[in-house]
């Protein structure tokens, strides 16, 4: 599943979950571990907004091609491992019906300094939006089924 890899600076602790379960931030937070050399942790939370374009929505129905999504996330994690010294990378993407106000994405990056944590976290989300097969179907307030 993993491309040829160059020598990396640190061993990356990776956790990836693509799941219909609700994202439970306190539980995820309680499972965090950071070694003495780590000085920065960033968490990003993506939440379903009440409007999608001009439309007012009640939820987004997320669909994925799960096996490929997991593989594409692994490729992105590999690339991050090559570029930045990251100790821990955890990502949860919720799929299925996610109501307005609920999180669909949770990302945590732990690294020695904040610069690389910010860079890796933004790279991860950008690349996800480019390559990971996940799609959104907004559920509109009126029809409850419009696309």
């Amino acid at each position, binding site marked *: 599943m993993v491309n040829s890899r160059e020598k990396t600076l640190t061993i990356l602790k990776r956790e990836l979950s693509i799941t219909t379960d609700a994202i439970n931030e306190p539980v995820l937070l309680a499972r965090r571990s950071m070694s003495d050399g780590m000085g920065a942790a960033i968490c990003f939370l*993506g939440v379903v907004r009440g409007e999608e374009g001009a439309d007012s929505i009640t939820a987004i129905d*997320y*669909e*994925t*091609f799960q*096996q*490929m*999504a*997991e*593989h*594409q996330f692994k490729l992105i994690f590999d690339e991050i491992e090559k570029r930045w010294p990251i100790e821990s990378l955890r990502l949860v*993407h919720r799929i299925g019906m996610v109501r307005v106000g609920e999180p*669909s*994405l949770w990302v945590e990056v732990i690294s020695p300094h904040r610069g690389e944590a910010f860079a890796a976290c933004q790279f991860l*989300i950008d690349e*996800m*939006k*480019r*390559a*990971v*097969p*996940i*799609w*959104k*179907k907004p559920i509109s307030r009126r029809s409850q089924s419009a*696309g």
Partner: protein
Amino acid sequence: MQIKVTFYSYFKDLTGCGETIQDVSDGTTLAALYTQLIARFSKLAAMEKSTLIAVGVEYQPRTYILKEGDQVALFPPVQGG
């Protein structure tokens, strides 16, 4: 040979199905496969430029030559997050 093709997102609505089998001859590229699928599912024609194509779990260019056992997935631009 027979190639299994899976559709995701609103491509399922355009084709009216989640997956199909397409008969192709040896040496068929993804571009040629797409043309054959348009003949069956005309609404795919408008999507040709923006369609992403994977074989297995990897993206492949239109020049990719299909081989026995390949599973193809067609879908619109992704939008995770």
